């Protein structure tokens, strides 16, 4: 039997955010909270500081045939037809006068990109989760949301793109 791995993916975009293997049980028996507790920590690799925490409600547990590279860099993968596929495109994010603009590479004809953004920070240390859907053939989407003043850490997820952490 092919060895399996367990993936934590964002429910909205199917972006992979973490991966694991389990020898003693099937990962499909687990809930996201079993593997992240109150939240999956997204950390700054340079100093280990926790930048964002993704709540289990935003995550799904999926299983797939074991692929070693997914374990080492899960955030470079997204599920396509329920199988992890390495992505090369990276989305971008900037603040606008009315919210944020997420830019991305155009998806194949007829496909609309789903966008999910988590922002944490600002002067009052707040957390926002924003979602949107792009147009067919589109390469950006504006999400209107009044952001308080200050700098935010942003986790940006877009269909068939790498997960990206940026500061805006």
């Amino acid at each position: 039997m092919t060895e399996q791995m367990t993936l934590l993916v964002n429910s909205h975009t199917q972006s992979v955010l973490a991966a694991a293997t389990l020898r003693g049980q099937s990962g499909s028996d687990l809930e996201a909270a079993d593997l992240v507790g109150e939240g999956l920590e997204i950390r700054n690799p340079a100093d280990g500081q926790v930048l964002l925490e993704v709540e289990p409600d935003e995550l799904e547990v999926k299983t797939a045939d074991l692929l070693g590279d997914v374990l080492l860099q899960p955030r470079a993968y997204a599920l396509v037809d329920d199988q992890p596929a390495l992505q090369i495109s990276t989305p971008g994010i900037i603040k606008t006068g009315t919210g944020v603009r997420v830019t991305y590479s155009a998806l194949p004809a007829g496909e609309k990109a789903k966008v999910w953004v988590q922002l944490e920070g600002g002067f009052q240390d707040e957390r926002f989760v924003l979602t949107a859907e792009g147009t067919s053939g589109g390469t950006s989407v504006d999400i209107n949301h009044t952001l308080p003043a200050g700098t935010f850490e942003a986790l940006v997820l877009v269909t068939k793109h790498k997960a990206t952490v940026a500061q805006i």
Partner: protein
Amino acid sequence: MSDRIERPVFFEGQVLGASDLESSVEYGRGHMARHERYLHTWGIAYGLELSGEDRERNSTKYKDITVSAGVASDGTGRQIVVPESERLDPELFLDLNIAREGAWHPVFLVGRDEDPAAEPLIETTCGTTQPRRKVEGYEITFGRPGDELELDEQTSPAASGGPDGGWKVLLGFVKWNSTIERFSDLADSSGGIGRRYAGALADEVVARGGVLSLRSAAATENGKPIVVVDEADGGKLQFGLQTNGVVQPVFTVKASGDVAATGTITGKLTTGVVYVESGVAYDGMLVPLPAGITEDDVEAGQVVLHVSVTPRYPGSPKPSGAGNWIPIVAECLAVGRRVRCRYLWTKDLTVAPTYVNGACDYLVVAYVPASSGSTS
């Protein structure tokens, strides 16, 4: 005492009156009603299913709903027979003045005695006509949303009583469209309350052929759960799904005490047992608990948890660019069950290092100390 049951008896030459013959019928009727009432639970015995056909009125879709033929037994012990399928009457629903748009209204079957429409009647000595039959009729009616919650508050007759009428048997639910005055939808259940099926009241069930079966559906329906008590092999209890009426056991208890299960058995933790899980986990997540151990067990102190993480080589992909990249562990530890794992890659020990989050190997050991769990 008037509540005592009287059985009619006859003798040769007796002049039989109508009351004598009537009491003969009532004796059997009452006997059957008490059996139904006290040895069975009330509900649908057969059929009486709601089905709808899509129709259109004023360009609005609605459903023409029918109750199929069937039999029910009510809480008074009355048997209610619907001999042929019957359409739910929108006019009756309208007359009841109970409509609430978008809400599920219960559909009830109510048994009642009726006089026959015409024949057979007989002329009495006084010249009047009397019916020679009673029709064991019924009414299909509707309730307000929530009336289904009061079904169990209906009152049964006294112990010696015969079957009464007026008891409501729930058949399903309908929705109403006030604009076109037609039913818009139907359902078997609403808010966890569904069609009530007749059952048995018994403190003992005894098989005659050596095998006692308990099924969730008829034996002809494959893939449905079944429990079997079987005298074969010295006696055994089996549970599984049925195929052609025969249990495919996933759990068996033999009279000798042997227990066999094809799945996982979980229960109270056993003292002294060690549970283990291992694998690979990524930075920021929790290492999983071993199968059979829950977060509640950990928080309650029922298990002692040992978590060990060790770096992988490589634990992250090599950066792009030619040269002799060297991975160095920047951080690899578990804080509780939370993985903290980072690597740095350096080239020839001269180029500024590149930090990345990465994966590590983990081992989780859960031990049930003697102060908790049960001994085996």
